[in-house]
């Protein structure tokens, strides 16, 4: 077996050195009957070519986005990933390294995390960011529990236009941690009144920007209303490229930003792995979940980086930790930061402008059927009939037309709504094809 270098000769020599008669003898502590005498009932080992062939056949049974016009979004977006990103993240010193607990030989990881945290702060307009989390949904759920800790309250008011997977992820924690999560009904055209739902028990208000239906709105007044009641404003972003074009949540008074960072550097990959971004205010730094990288000096006085404020984390605080999380999305955050470094100030703004221009172009063609008044690169279209049926039919014609709202809000009476996303990978022909198909 190509990955296992111990030879039969090695094995017998080593057993002799140990003083054991056989490898099996080393498993003597396994209870009677539980040690299997034979391999389990699964196929035997296979060569590289054979494995690749079998998996390629499975891959071929999926319709890749690049195969035709593609308009799916709703929390996972198709963007172009520069070739350098994928090359660099596969360097073995990044790919096969561990969490940087030994900073002397992990400065590569630590420095990019420090740069990553800075980029996330700049994009979101926030003061402090962590080294990433599992995904946007878990980041949002952690934002709610952090708001509970900061305010010592236990009721979250959640926008009906928050992505239902995010809402449900937070609801799972609410159920088991015993706090309240009050989510409103979806309002595809926006106009939700959240301020009136905030009371003295509210720990936070959770909104999405742009929201599930693509709406963008100014949360400054909501932030003030929340703060007046002692509650925090949590802003969720599922399409981080939007912040290349939009006012950042930090400028609107957000206390926590929980975002999905997949759009930069990371493939859609059927929904994972993605990466959660988490940013907050300095005054709440010690209540933040997840890893933090900080700058310091070494014994020779040279600038270097370490994981810091680790006492918040599970391996020190054990049952008193801020969260049970012990993983970030290391390699995904590396892809994110490399992509964003390549883009830079000008590149990101141009990329965001391209996305918006494409969406506007499509919206203009669809006219009054567009439900969303203001949007970035994704909006909601009202169809004449069932959107899921239309999507299925168009898939048969080679067009992945978007995400039917009923997929995320089943039984909510929104079956005629379709979420449509346009990115820089969507070209003029794609736009024309969808406009025609929906007409």
């Amino acid at each position, binding site marked *: 077996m190509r990955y296992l270098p111990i030879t039969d000769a090695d094995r017998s020599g080593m057993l002799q050195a140990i003083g054991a008669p056989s490898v099996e003898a080393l498993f003597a502590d396994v209870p009677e009957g539980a040690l299997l005498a034979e391999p389990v009932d699964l196929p035997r080992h296979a060569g590289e070519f054979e494995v690749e062939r079998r998996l390629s056949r499975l891959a071929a049974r999926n319709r890749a986005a690049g195969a035709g016009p593609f308009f799916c979004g709703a929390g996972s977006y198709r963007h172009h990933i520069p070739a350098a990103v994928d090359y660099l993240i596969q360097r073995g010193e990044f790919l096969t390294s561990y969490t940087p607990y030994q900073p002397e030989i992990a400065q590569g990881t630590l420095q990019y995390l420090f740069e990553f945290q800075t980029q996330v702060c700049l994009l979101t307009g926030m003061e402090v960011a962590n080294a990433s989390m599992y995904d946007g949904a878990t980041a949002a759920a952690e934002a709610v529990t952090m708001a509970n800790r900061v305010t010592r309250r236990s009721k979250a008011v959640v926008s009906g236009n928050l992505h239902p997977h995010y809402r449900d992820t937070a609801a799972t924690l609410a159920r088991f941690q015993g706090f309240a999560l009050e989510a409103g009904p979806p309002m595809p055209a926006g106009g939700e009144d959240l301020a009136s739902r905030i009371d003295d028990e509210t720990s936070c208000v959770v909104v999405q920007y742009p929201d599930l239906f693509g709406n963008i709105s100014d949360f400054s007044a909501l932030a003030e209303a929340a703060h007046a009641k002692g509650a925090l404003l949590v802003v969720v972003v599922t399409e981080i490229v939007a912040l290349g074009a939009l006012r950042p949540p930090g400028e609107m008074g957000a206390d926590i930003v929980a975002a999905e960072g997949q759009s930069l550097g990371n493939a859609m990959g059927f929904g994972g792995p993605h990466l959660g971004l988490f940013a907050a205010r300095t005054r709440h730094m*010690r209540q933040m979940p997840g890893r933090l990288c900080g700058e310091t000096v070494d014994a020779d006085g040279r600038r270097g980086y370490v994981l*810091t*404020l*680790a*006492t918040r984390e599970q391996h*020190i*605080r054990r049952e*008193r930790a801020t969260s049970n999380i012990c993983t970030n999305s290391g390699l995904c955050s590396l892809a994110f930061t490399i992509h964003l470094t390549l883009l830079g100030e000008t590149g990101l703004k141009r990329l965001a402008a391209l996305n918006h221009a494409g969406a506007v172009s499509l919206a203009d063609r669809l006219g009054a059927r567009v439900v969303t008044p203001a949007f970035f690169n994704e909006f909601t279209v009202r169809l004449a009939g069932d959107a899921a049926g239309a999507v299925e039919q168009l898939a048969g014609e080679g067009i992945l037309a978007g995400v039917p709202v009923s997929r995320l809000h089943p039984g909510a009476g929104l079956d005629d709504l379709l979420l449509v996303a346009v990115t820089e990978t969507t070209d003029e022909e794609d736009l024309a094809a969808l406009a025609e198909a929906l007409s």
Partner: protein
Amino acid sequence: MAVRTYYTREHEWVRIEEGVAICGITDYAQTQLGDVVYVELPEVGAEIARDGEAAVVESTKAASDVYAPVTGTILAVNDRLEESPDLVNESAEDQGWFFRMQIDDEGELDELMDEEGYQAFVEELD
């Protein structure tokens, strides 16, 4: 009234000055912790029962709870620790105090150790 200092088995000290308790962690505790990097202090006005969690002291490797040695109300906290947590290392039983408390029941003090008792307690630990 003379100044009296008491000690707990959790390595906190309490000094009574004019009927008010000033509390912190002992010099022994700070050497065990190593470099103190952060102290989370209680809110002024908080009422804390004896042995209730009153503060958290963090070094780079550990976070330890600090318990109220007696039942009472927090009157003031040492704001200087926010900027200079190193005061706990440099002057644990003076400049590095944590909080001042109004004591509910002075009788509770009788259950704590005096300096001599605490020294003997620490020697047994080493």
